[in-house]
């Protein structure tokens, strides 16, 4: 009898503690569920799915769903997706439109929320020296083009520095570029090395994975007397130089690559020419 009471008390006690733990949570969630109902019913009754998409993804902001939908109306190639920058490289707006656009059309660029800084060259990262003498840097957000390196050089530097850019410490065999950086005889503290062939689609969709930079034959194993004291990486977030803007709305623009635009303009009546004409609201350059 006594054991029975004890066991019963233990069961009741355990359930009571569990109820005390979960009761408030369940109550709060229940209240939230009930609170959602009137607004959700109203939204369902008074708005269309398209209006709800526009409210969620934005017209000229966020994913620019409204603007991109307008620009894609009458787009001559139903299977092609233009380059979309918001200002990151983002495939979501194209995935949200009806149909499937699996072909990459880089002759057309649609940009949402792009600032002047995004289309100018700037320092996009400063490299950190690693314990093994190599350098690593992250861009974190998407940068279209790598244009230059800026080396802070110590006086002990040789006349030429072989520089290798590798994919990442995880993939050190994947080389992105190799350069011989000439160091002037009367060298300055800072040497800017501009890439003859800028690296395109440089850090699109890469996230925070670091790049690896090796100054071979000099840095490796000589951390105490480093000839390079700092490296800045220069690039452009959205490289607008090949493009001409044909449509501009607040916070948004659509641009066509210049060579393609000349071709289009030379063929009046062509579907592309009709499309460009239909969206153009910017005076020709």
């Amino acid at each position: 009898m006594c054991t029975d009471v004890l066991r019963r008390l233990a069961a009741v006690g355990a359930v009571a503690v569990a109820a005390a733990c979960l009761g408030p949570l369940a109550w709060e969630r229940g209240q939230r569920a009930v609170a959602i109902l009137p607004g959700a019913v109203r939204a369902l009754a008074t708005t269309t799915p398209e209006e709800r998409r526009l409210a969620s993804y934005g017209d000229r902001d966020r994913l620019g769903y409204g603007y991109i939908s307008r620009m894609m109306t009458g787009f001559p190639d139903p299977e092609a997706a233009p380059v979309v920058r918001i200002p990151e490289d983002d495939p979501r707006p194209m995935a949200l439109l009806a149909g499937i656009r699996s072909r990459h059309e880089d002759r057309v660029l649609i940009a949402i929320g792009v600032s002047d800084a995004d289309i100018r060259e700037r320092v996009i990262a400063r490299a950190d020296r690693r314990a093994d003498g190599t350098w690593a840097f992250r861009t974190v957000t998407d940068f279209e083009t790598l244009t230059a390196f800026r080396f802070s050089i110590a006086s002990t530097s040789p006349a030429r520095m072989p520089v290798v850019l590798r994919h990442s410490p995880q993939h050190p065999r994947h080389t992105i570029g190799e350069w011989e950086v000439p160091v002037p005889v009367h060298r300055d503290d800072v040497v800017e090395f501009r890439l003859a062939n800028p690296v395109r689609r440089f850090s699109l969709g890469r996230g925070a994975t670091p790049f690896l930079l090796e100054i071979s034959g000099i840095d490796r194993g000589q951390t105490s007397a480093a000839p390079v004291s700092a490296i800045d990486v220069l690039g452009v977030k959205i490289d607008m130089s090949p493009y001409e803007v044909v449509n501009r709305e607040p916070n948004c623009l659509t641009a066509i690559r210049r060579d393609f635009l000349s071709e289009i303009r030379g063929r009046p009546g062509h579907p592309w020419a009709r499309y460009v004409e239909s969206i153009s609201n910017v005076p020709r350059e």
Partner: protein
Amino acid sequence: MFPGSSIPSALLTLVGIPLLIGSALPGPGRNLGTRWWFGTIIAGLTVIVGHAAGAPRAMTLAAVIAVAAVGIVRGRRWVAPSRDWTAAVTVLLLLAPALAQCLSTLIQPVAGYDGIVIWYSKTKALFAWQPMAALPFARYPNMGPAQWFLNLAWAGEGQEHVGRLVFVLASLAWIWALRELWPAPMPWSSVVVVPIVGLVFMDVDPEHTSGYQDAFLMATAAMACTLITKVLTRDSGAGGASTSGSPRQDITLAALFAGSLGLIKQEGLFLGLILVSVGALSLLGGADRDRRRALTGFLWPALALYAALALLWPLLVSLHGMNPLNIQHGDTFTVGSVLQAFGQFWRWPLIAPYFAAYVRDIGPALTAAGILSLAGAWLAPHLRRGVQFLWGVLVVHLAFVFLVFLSTRADLGWHLESAFARLAGQNRFVLAVLLSLTAVSLIELALARTRRLGATARRRAVAREGAYDPEPASEVPPRA
């Protein structure tokens, strides 16, 4: 297929087709949630195999309808279950959260990066019936997009929000299937416990149904887990085979659900393996030789079914010219990166805060489950193997999560930030099953003891007064 279909007609097909397929399951008392889940997985498998085999879209959809027709024919043999007042009350209590989740899914378009770029894109590509290798993120499994696609096929391409209702139903059906844990007649305490567990675990936040597959994966794993737990606890003496299915059928269904996990997400393959291996060990572990012989009789076929399903996706991937060992998009995870994981324990200090945040997040449920498990294991011995199994799954899955972040080749900080909570959250079903099982058992135990103590007191009073007790408690010896 039916452009312009309204939401009610889409819902009818969303509920109806899986239930028709599920009606093929024998046992008049078989839980409706389990029937729905069985139908859903079979319909999804039909789409996956039909698509991968290059069958035309119309033929594959016709095959789904044919499978439903088989369900109707087989289902006619079974008698409808008797009325159960606990079911009506549970439905009533779950109505508000269920409705809230349905409505918030309908008013909230597909969202999140992966939700749109991976899963919705795959669904659209399936809708267009693109070849398997041409699908976006082709190595990612197709079960979720197949379900979504099936509903778009009935509701129309533009009705993606209606298509996502399948993920709401998946949550609801799983919560309903928790009632599998108890033999009929359903204990009244389940009427309180199941809705509370439903409220805690079936979150009304739209991200659960936004297009991400983690909640769908968790619900499928929950089905396997619930059925294994049912066999473990019934096998231990709390009740035998019943109208709600035999242990053989339960284990076979659990194998089906566990095997399907690898068809939902890549990591599901590992979650399925964890469920099956810990489940098999728990089933065989405490059994004597005769019982073990009887168990292995139906365990082997179930394990074969599990293995066939688990290997199905890697097989389809390799048949379409892709490398099944490249576990995720890019080379974030490969066999090589996993093998290197054990040399990367230096990552622990970076991973630990995410584990701490996860434990804080599930803190109340974890505390409640811990206390109820201890009390349950002490007071109700038939729960012990079930409780051991559930904690085993939780611990091994958390070890798996740790391994994932030891072996990732992606930037660790970014990967932890973007994936840890979703990956670790896939095991929350364990707590739901634990809480339901132990809470109901302990409440029933306390009430039974109350009744027994009451009966003893009454008997003494009767003895004093010389009256007759018409309903003596079973453990009180009958009067001579």
